């Protein structure tokens, strides 16, 4: 009761973080992904696109591309429109336009493992095999569901829809300027090629590492977490090949093989997971493209 009263008082002044109660406006655009899938990098790229006069950093990023779980309702209400909003939530039909980032789950799990060490959710020597099992069950981020539920939920409902823009982290790494041009177009921004490469440079892994060093005590993205584990980590793809034991690769591929294949992630175990044949792969076929405009 006291807590509810306190929360209600905060609400009265709009000082609470709206989370999923955020009032969504028809011209809002969302940057959505499962955690540890390149969301912050893309967020910085977009923040730099939106801020031509001053390079974005880990403090201004919350103003340029806000997070309903980190910024207050009042801040949201005062933002210039149209807004670009960061989110890790599972499928939400209220989101009008969505940039959806996806990353190879074999890399996601490793990135997540280190991030949870950084945020002290797990100990340094937490067994990786146990972590992978919990990851597959969706227990490592109980607030976001499993990787498969997250990705499939968004794809089944929106893939092929003109209001949905799918970005693979791996493609963004391979051709950052090219993918960013696609994102800009989706957001209705038309930067010059020079401006695009400027934005890419201002959002590079090296610059992000420098910003992390300068702002790790002030940015809400990393405040309070361990300093000896970096937030900006490898910034590459395929790390799982050396870091993930084969038995764990197999577990992930068994859980989500068809979905991974659909996204262009080549399976290490060419043997199809039991019970599913590649031609059965569903999600691409169920394109609900015309469900809404």
């Amino acid at each position, binding site marked *: 009761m006291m807590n509810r009263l306190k929360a209600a008082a905060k609400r009265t002044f709009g000082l609470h973080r709206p989370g999923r109660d955020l009032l969504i406006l028809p011209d809002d655009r969302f940057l959505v992904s499962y955690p540890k899938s390149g969301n912050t990098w893309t967020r910085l790229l977009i923040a730099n696109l939106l801020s031509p006069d001053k390079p974005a950093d880990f403090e201004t990023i919350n103003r340029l591309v806000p997070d309903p779980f980190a910024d207050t309702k009042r801040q949201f209400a005062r933002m210039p429109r149209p807004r670009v909003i960061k989110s890790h939530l599972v499928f939400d*039909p209220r989101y009008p336009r969505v940039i959806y980032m996806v990353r190879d789950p074999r890399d996601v799990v490793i990135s997540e493992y280190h991030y949870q060490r950084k945020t002290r959710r797990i100990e340094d020597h937490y067994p990786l095999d146990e972590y992978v099992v919990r990851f597959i069950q969706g227990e490592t981020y109980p607030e976001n569901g499993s990787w498969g539920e997250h990705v499939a939920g968004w794809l089944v409902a929106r893939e092929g829809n003109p209001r949905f823009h799918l970005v693979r982290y791996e493609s963004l790494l391979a051709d950052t300027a090219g993918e960013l041009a696609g994102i800009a177009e989706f957001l209705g921004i038309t930067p010059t090629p020079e401006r695009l490469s400027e934005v890419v440079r201002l959002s590079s892994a090296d610059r992000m590492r420098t910003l992390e060093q300068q702002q790790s005590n002030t940015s809400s993205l990393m405040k309070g977490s361990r300093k000896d584990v970096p937030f900006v980590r490898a910034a590459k793809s395929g790390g799982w090949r050396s870091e993930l034991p084969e038995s764990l690769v197999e577990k992930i591929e068994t859980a989500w093989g068809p979905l991974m294949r659909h996204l262009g992630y080549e399976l290490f175990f060419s043997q199809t997971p039991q019970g599913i044949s590649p031609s059965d792969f569903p999600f691409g*076929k169920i394109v609900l493209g015309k469900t*809404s405009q």
Partner: protein
Amino acid sequence: MSYRIKSLIKYALGTDVAGRSLTVRPDDTFLVSYPRSGNTWTRFLIANLLYPKEPVSFANIERLIPDCEALSSRYLKSLPSPRCIKSHEYFDHRYRKVLYIVRDPRDVALSYHSFQRKYRQIADDYPISQYVSDFVNGRLNSADWGTWAENVGSWLVREGQASFLLLRYEDMMADPAAELAKIAPFFHVEPSADLLAVAVERSSAVRMRELERKESSQWVATKNRRQDIPFVGTASSGGWKSRLPAESVAEIESAWGPLMQRLGYQLTTVAQEPVHHLVK
């Protein structure tokens, strides 16, 4: 402003409608569907199966199988575990055990049209073809739960899992006892033929219509609503064939054809494609 103050007070007291902010328990079982897909009938079937000694009615259904989109957080919190909760939410990963009912969207659109007239959300003469267009494009109140395809599609990511049961309204119409027998294990009930027969009988459309006549003022969903349009609808499948204009059928099928087919709903206006299964 007064609306804002009211909702703040409600929030402070915990009397706000639970909805998506419901605190989910690991042992909850959810009865989920898009609106007008046979959810209330299934609620009666399950309640009659679980409480054979208690006459299930509109007066007590909210206590037996509460509706998280009509009742408050505080009320739902007060109920003992394990709860069985009715919901229309699109995919919510926190729901562990889910019974999902799907119904032919061509029938859903018709049923929803009459329901929204009952609730005075649309005028009596609101053209059905315009209505179907709104339905397909997510312009109705029901869009809070996504479009039909978004709601159904988002839940199908669970298909094949032991804790997820997909039920077709049409199969339930054809053989309610057989479908109810599939539901029984979720509640650790041994579905004897007698028990099933009694539950089906007590949940028949005839009996539900009779209960609605007597108790409509005692149920949150029908209280203070128009009495001349019933909540319990036609309780039939395929009504769209005679009652839905051809252009509306075509609009639904061209928007959601692949998903409809995948669920076994024959298309009449667009070419059938080979069916792909989510999980074998």
